[in-house]
C-alpha cells in the first residue's frame, strides 16, 4: 500500500534521512521506532508531503506521492496525527472535526464520520461545543485522532500519540488505535515508547541516525540496543 524506497531528505543543508526504505501493507499495524531525533518525524513529513525528498520514491496505492502537493495527499487517503496533536485551540471541538473532513469526498460523508468518531470517543461528543484550547491533554489527543479520522483515511499516521500522557490514558489511546486498525484502517505508528509500540504492532522498523537499521516482529529486534534497553528499563 505504502512504499518508500531509497529516500534521502534534507533540512536545508542538513541531511536527515539516508536511503530510507519501508513498506506498509493494507490492513497492517506497523510501528516505526527509534531514539529521539532519529528521523521518525521526518519520515512522516516525507510521506505527508510537508518535506519533499531529494532522492528516492514514495508510492501509495500505486501513486507517486513525491509529485503531489501536501494537501492532495490527504485526498488520496493518508491522514496524520501530528506530534503533540496540534489541534486548533481557538476553535471548537466540532470545528476541529469539521476541518478534519475538509477534502471534498470526506466532506460529503462528514455526518456519518462524525457519528463514527463520536462512537470511538464519546468524550468528544460531550465537549463538542467547547473550545479545543480548554481540553485536557488526553482529550486533545483524542481530538487530534478523531480529526484525522474525519478524512476517512486508508492509512493513518500517528506521531507519538502517547507523549506526555498519564499511563492510564496511554493505555486507552493505544487500545483505541488497535480498535481503529481492526475496523480496517492501516496504521503507521511512530513511537518512543518502544515496548508498547512493539506489543501492539505486527511489525516494526527501527530507525537510527536517519537510517533504517532493522525490521521485523519484536522478538527479531531484540539485538538492537534501543529495543533491548526498552525491555530492560
Amino acid at each position, binding site marked *: 500500500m505504502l512504499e518508500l524506497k531509497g529516500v534521502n531528505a534534507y533540512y536545508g543543508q542538513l541531511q536527515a534521512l539516508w536511503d530510507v526504505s519501508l513498506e506498509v501493507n493494507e490492513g497492517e499495524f506497523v510501528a516505526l521506532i527509534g531514539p529521539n531525533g532519529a528521523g521518525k518525524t521526518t519520515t512522516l513529513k516525507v510521506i505527508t508531503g510537508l518535506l519533499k525528498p531529494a532522492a528516492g520514491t514514495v508510492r501509495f496505492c500505486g501513486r507517486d506521492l513525491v509529485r503531489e502537493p501536501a494537501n492532495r495527499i490527504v485526498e488520496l487517503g493518508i491522514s496524520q496525527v*501530528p506530534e503533540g496533536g496540534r489541534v486548533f485551540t481557538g476553535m471548537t471541538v466540532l470545528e476541529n472535526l469539521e476541518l478534519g473532513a475538509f477534502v471534498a469526498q470526506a466532506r460529503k460523508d462528514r455526518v456519518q464520520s462524525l457519528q463514527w468518531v463520536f462512537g470511538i470517543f464519546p468524550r468528544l461528543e460531550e465537549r463538542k461545543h467547547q473550545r479545543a484550547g480548554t481540553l485536557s491533554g488526553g482529550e486533545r489527543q483524542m481530538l487530534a485522532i478523531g480529526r484525522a479520522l474525519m478524512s476517512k483515511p486508508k492509512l493513518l499516521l500517528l506521531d507519538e500519540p502517547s507523549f506526555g500522557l498519564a499511563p492510564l490514558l496511554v493505555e486507552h489511546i493505544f487500545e483505541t488505535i488497535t480498535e481503529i486498525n481492526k475496523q480496517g484502517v492501516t496504521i503507521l505508528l511512530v513511537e518512543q515508547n518502544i515496548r508498547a509500540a512493539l506489543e501492539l504492532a505486527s511489525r516494526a522498523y527501527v530507525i537510527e541516525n536517519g537510517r533504517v537499521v532493522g525490521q521485523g516482529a519484536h522478538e527479531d529486534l531484540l539485538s538492537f540496543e534501543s529495543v533491548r534497553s526498552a525491555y530492560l528499563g
Partner: protein
Amino acid sequence: MPATVAQSLAFGILVGALYALAAVGLSLVFGVTKFLNVAHGEFLMFGGYASFWLFTLLGVDPFASIPLSMLFLVLIGLLVYRLLFSRMAKLPTQEKIRNTLLVGFGLGLILQNVALRLWTADNRGITPSYAREALTILGVRLPYVRVASLILAFVFLFALQLFLRRTYTGKAIRATVEDWEAATLMGIDVHRVYLLSFLLAAALAGAAGTLVAVGYSVEPTMGMHWTLKGLIVLVMGGIGSITGTLVGGLILGVAESATAVFINSNYRQVVGLVIFILVLLIRPQGLFGTKEG
C-alpha cells in the same frame, strides 16, 4: 462646550468605523499569511479613486460603485499577489515579515507616484446631491453619507465575521492562522488560502476607499496615513480578532476627536501614533488580543 464634545464624539465614532474597516484587511492578511502589506493604504486610495472617477465621469452613485471598486481592487490584488507576494509565501516567518514589509513599502511608493502622475496631487471628494444633508439629533449633526458609511462598515465586518465562523472556507482560513502545517495536514491548500485572504483584504480596502472618498476625500499620499491607522488599530485590537479591530477602530476615532477638542486639532493625527508606540512597548500582543505567534 458639551455640544461640541458630543459632536466630536459622534464624528470620532463615524470615522472610527472606517478605521476598523481599513484595518481588518491588514489584520486578516497578516494573521493568515504573515505578510505585512504596508501598501494596504494605497489599495484603499485606489478604491477611492475608482469610485471618484465612476462618479465624476459616468455619474455612478458612490454607494452603488462599491462592488465595482471592490472588483477593481481584487484585480489589482491578484496582480500584486502573483507578481510579488506569492514569491515570498514560503520564506521563514521573520524573513517573510521583513521582506513583505520592504516590498510593500516600495509598492506603496510606486502606487502613490502613479496616482500622482495620473490624477495630480489634488484632494478629491465625491459629492453626490445628498452629500451635504444631515440628520440632527439633540443638536448633533450626523451627515447621511457618514452614517451610511458607518452602517456599511459594520455590515462588512459582520459579514466577514460570519464568513469566517460559518463557512468551510472561513474555517480553513482560521485554521491556517492558527497553524498552517496542521492545516495542510487537513488537506487545506494553504497557498490558496493565502491568495484568498489577500484578495479579500484588497476588496475590503476597495470598499473602505469608496467610503472614505464619499465621506471625506482622497489624494495620492493618503496611503501611508491609512496604513498607519490600520497598524494602530491592529496593535490595539490584536491580530485576527474582528471584534478587537472594531473596538480598536472606534477607540482611535474617539481618541482623535477628543484630542482635537481638548488639546489642539493639529495633534489629532499624533494621538494614535502615541497610543501605538505605547501599546507596542507595554502590550506587544495587542490590547484585546491573546498571545499570537
